[in-house]
């Protein structure tokens, strides 16, 4: 399932992006190769000219060369719509100017013909860029977890050695035993699962993830196939993905302000529904796996 969804996301993105781009090619969305014949006047600034395009005056810098002349158009001025599209989607990182090729220029009649850079494969380039950017971001995200993880794993180690985790296991065993029948009675996994769920319920996000990872490590000790998820792991993950949080998340409070108070009850009810669905789903899958 994960294989299919993962590959599906990637394949759908590429095929869809390519189909959009091919449609753009077909309809010549970016007016590629279009030759603009314009009047121009010399500007008071040396080297600059003013282009007259559909009653808009556009300032541009003229670079005359023997075999190929070009003009540079700054994109911070009001530009006609097709030019804006070109400015926005042109390849390269410099979006501040468009480099247009001058085909002919007649200083006597003040007329010139120019061609804007061609735009191809906008969507394909966008998704490629997104893939690279996110790959980099993923590493930063993971390394950012290292410190907070070290902190909580260190504290957990103390709690395990002092017997605190064991006392906690005894306390919540009745609650968790039904959900995790495969965990032995006195195993510390029950303790770390309980702590993770408690952190989630209270909305302590940055404590919940390290504690959850600790719980996964405990569950891995009990796992007989080390590369394959156990039933307990699936149950634990389903509880975490369905969110057992009873307080509204901090981001929601920041976005909604005081309005959030009337959503507290709906959120708790919806959370109960999603968690219940997760538990039932895992139990059914576990039973189906045993048959």
């Amino acid at each position, binding site marked *: *399932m994960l294989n299919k969804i993962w590959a599906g*996301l990637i394949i*759908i*993105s590429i095929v*869809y992006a390519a189909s959009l781009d091919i449609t753009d090619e077909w309809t010549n969305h970016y007016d590629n190769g279009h030759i603009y014949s314009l009047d121009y006047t010399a500007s008071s600034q040396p080297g600059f000219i003013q282009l007259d395009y559909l009653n808009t005056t556009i300032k541009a810098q003229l670079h005359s060369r023997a075999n190929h002349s070009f003009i540079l158009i700054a994109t911070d001025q009001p530009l006609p719509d097709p030019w804006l599209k070109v400015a926005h989607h042109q390849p390269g990182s410099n979006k501040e100017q468009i480099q247009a090729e001058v085909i002919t220029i007649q200083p006597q009649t003040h007329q010139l013909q120019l061609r804007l850079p061609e735009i191809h494969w906008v969507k394909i380039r966008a*998704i490629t860029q*997104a893939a690279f950017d*996110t*790959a980099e*971001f*993923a590493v930063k*995200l993971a*390394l950012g*977890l*290292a410190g907070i*993880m*070290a902190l909580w794993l*260190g*504290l957990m*180690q*103390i*709690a*395990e*050695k*002092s017997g*605190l985790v064991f006392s906690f296991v005894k306390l919540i065993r009745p609650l968790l035993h039904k959900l995790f029948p495969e965990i032995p009675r006195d195993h510390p996994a029950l303790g770390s699962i309980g702590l993770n769920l408690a952190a989630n319920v*209270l*909305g*302590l996000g940055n*404590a919940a*993830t390290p504690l*959850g*990872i600790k719980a*996964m*490590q405990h569950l891995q000790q009990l796992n007989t*196939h*080390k*590369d*394959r998820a156990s039933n307990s792991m*699936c149950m634990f*993950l*389903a509880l975490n*993905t*369905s*969110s057992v*949080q009873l307080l509204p998340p901090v981001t929601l409070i920041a*976005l909604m302000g005081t309005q*959030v108070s009337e*959503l507290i*009850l*709906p*959120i708790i009810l*919806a959370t109960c*529904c*999603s*968690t*219940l669905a*997760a538990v039932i*789903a895992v139990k059914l899958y576990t039973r189906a*796996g045993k048959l």
Partner: protein
Amino acid sequence: MQHFTALVIPLIILFILSHGLFKKVAVYEEFIEGAREGFGTAVRIIPYLVAMLFAIAMFRASGAMEAIIELLTPLLSLFGIPAETLPMALIRPMTGSGSVGILAELIQTHGEDSIIVKIAATMFGSTETTLYVLAVYFGAVNITKTRYALQAGLIADLAGYLAAVVICFWFFS
């Protein structure tokens, strides 16, 4: 309530430490022993996170989601579900920051009082970023065969969405 949560973590730390000292645990040494795994775990997660996040980012950048929404809109209106809430339902399991962005956008266009925002916010509050949690938790213990964990997580997300729709209509109209 927020002031209470500010106290929770210092209290937990204080409790763990004093209990450790009381039980004559070499607290500093044990802390280091446990914390040693922190970096290794973070590094172990990297490939899982890269795999998951880059696929999601490509999907979001391709604009395929908008096409899917368009396809599903008639189906939703058949059941009277506002189609504007669909982006939240689709993005919530994939990215946390993306779903925050969608919620902010919905608030801007429809206002906090609209049923659309209420449904989206309830969905946001009642489910988690399933794919991210899956990558991090299974990545930490090097498990690639996730069996039915993803299905169960997505079923929970769907239940959360439908519950948010039903509950919000029941509460607010």
